[in-house]
């Protein structure tokens, strides 16, 4: 066992897949000699060479489109967005071309698009985004959002092996802040579509993913200490396809559910989860499903503003109290 950061775990996963399968290659801006803006692919250029770690021009549509073409012929491309905010430049390629390839043309499209998402880093409106909701609405894509170092590694490996296109959203706030003991050998793969119980509880359920898992766990500690409440925390890990069974199980167990995400509120992932719960477990609920999310604004730069707009541990605590008292 060795202690590795979320970032290093992701790097290990990528490296292991590149060693395991020569069809895997990386393309993106500054991923080669420079090793990527956040150094995720540091050392790859030296180990795998220029042909498998490709520096591209600043052309996200071409990066994703080229990945799709390569994937059709049996390659396993991993495309990096320097910041996930720039995935919007490849939105057409992803939603129109990539997502429909199998359905409309029986074309295999086993590619991964990954990149740093998320706020709490004073990055302003264009270096902090969480674009999952924009893609959740697109049949044909898969979306994973690791919260732990283990899943950062396990999900990148699963994403690369998956036969469908996978969007892998890694949270830049977690890169160097989250550490975990991971086995040095063995094949650590996190199955796509499977949630993880991050904390067992009985009084209420917090359904969440990505960096918010850590805020939910913090809130659970406060609730336990100050209110004697035992919150359960479900880390979804995969958003598409969603682990409905795990969601139902926690609903049936605690009968009180809240959903927490960092993305904005209207049209966010929480709405979809709430609808599913409403449709299949209404009679199990003792309270309305509540949400903790960012406010419906672009994400501002100033610390005072960013902290106000983004969900904080205190928000989770106060909504949980409301939920428990309902």
């Amino acid at each position, binding site marked *: 066992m060795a202690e590795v950061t979320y970032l290093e775990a992701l790097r290990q996963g990528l490296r292991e897949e590149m060693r395991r399968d020569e069809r895997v290659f990386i393309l993106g801006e500054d991923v080669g000699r420079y090793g990527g803006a956040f150094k995720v692919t540091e050392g790859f250029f030296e180990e795998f060479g220029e042909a498998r770690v490709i520096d591209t021009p600043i052309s996200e549509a071409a990066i994703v489109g080229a990945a799709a073409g390569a994937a059709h012929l049996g390659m396993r491309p991993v495309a990096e967005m320097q910041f996930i905010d720039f995935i919007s430049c490849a939105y057409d390629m992803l939603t129109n071309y990539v997502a429909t390839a199998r359905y409309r043309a029986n074309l295999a499209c086993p590619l991964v698009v990954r990149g740093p998402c998320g706020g709490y880093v004073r990055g*302003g409106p264009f270096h902090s985004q969480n674009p999952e909701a924009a893609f959740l609405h697109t049949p044909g894509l898969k979306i994973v959002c690791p919260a732990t170092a283990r899943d950062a590694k396990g999900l990148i490996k699963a994403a690369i092996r998956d036969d469908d296109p996978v969007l892998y959203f890694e949270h830049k706030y977690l890169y160097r802040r989250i550490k975990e003991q991971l086995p040095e050998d063995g094949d650590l793969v996190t199955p796509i579509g499977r949630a993880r119980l991050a904390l067992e509880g009985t009084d209420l359920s917090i359904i969440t993913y990505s960096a918010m898992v850590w805020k939910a766990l913090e809130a659970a500690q406060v609730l336990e200490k100050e209110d004697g409440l035992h919150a359960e925390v479900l880390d979804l890990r995969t958003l598409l396809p969603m682990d409905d069974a795990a969601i139902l199980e926690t609903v049936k167990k605690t009968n009180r559910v809240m959903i927490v995400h960092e993305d904005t509120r209207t049209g966010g992932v929480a709405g979809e989860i709430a609808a599913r719960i409403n449709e299949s477990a209404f009679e199990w609920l003792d309270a309305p499903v509540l949400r903790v999310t960012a406010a419906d604004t672009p994400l501002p730069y*100033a610390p005072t503003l960013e902290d106000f707009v983004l969900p904080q541990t205190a928000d989770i605590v106060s909504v949980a109290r409301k939920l428990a008292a309902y």
Partner: protein
Amino acid sequence: MTARPAAAGRKAVAGIPAGLGRAQLLELYYFMRLTRSLEERLANLYRQGKVIGGLFRSLGQEADSVGSAFALDRSAGDMLSPLIRNLGSLLVMGALPVDVLRQYMAKATSPTRGRELNVHFGDLERGFIGQISHLGDMLPVMAGITLTFQLRGERRVGLVYVGDGAMSTGAFHEGMNLAAVRRLPLVVVAENNGYSYSTTLERQTAVPQLVLKARAYGVRGERADGNDVLAVYDVTRRAVDRARAGEGVTLIELVTYRRKGHAEHDDQHYVPKDELARWERNDPIDRFVRQLTDSGWADAGELEAADARVAGELDAAVQAAQGEPLPEPASALEGVYVEPPRQAAPWQREVTRG
């Protein structure tokens, strides 16, 4: 401090190029010095942790931003849109150093009220539109600005900056093509500074010169030494005049060099040392100072006075900006729409905090 040759004495004033007068030469000098010194102040504040986000430098590229923006006619209502390294162009258009400091420090008093960072701000009155991070996006926007000039029959000109890297985006291509096809009064300044982040020009584009792309769009192409402020002014001025006369788009490649890393955090280890040294010797401010004094267009005293003016203005600006507060948290919710829409489901703060 720049090393300057001894005062040239009573040398005769040789013919000043590009139709400029002595006062304008001093203004060009002032703006280049202001740009460099403001960034040096920002670098200090950055090291003290007072700049909230990243810091992007234009060291060695001041002539490119200042000389090109100077070619616009502010009184005619010309407009430009900068990129991250075009601080100098904003200062020429009348942006206040104190506002730039406020932006970097995310102050409530900043032009974007703490919402956006660094030089991502605009001022329609002063004639500039703030960029967003997504590279290339300002090209279509400036096409729309200049389309409006054209539709309204106004003799105004637009100028937009694009980096050697940003030229690879789809948005750049589409905006460029639209502007070309409509013969819009737009000057496109392509800054070839050798790098986009760590990526060298050869890995960014297969053409050896950015100006070659002009032909593909059917627009006029020009290329100039971006570290020679008078050459920059001259080439841009001619493009601006043509645009104003209805002759459409010019793509100008300015050859310059990014002397710092992509941002302050980047140690630019991928840059060959001799390359850096070579460009240090080609510093645009040093060159202009030599030109001014050797030709007798300005004397050392005038340049020192300009330096003193810059230092004094920046002292005051830094002092003013530092003491100002960050924005009120709840102000984050204002101004997403003209009229706030009614929300079906209120936000958690409204539910739990009354």
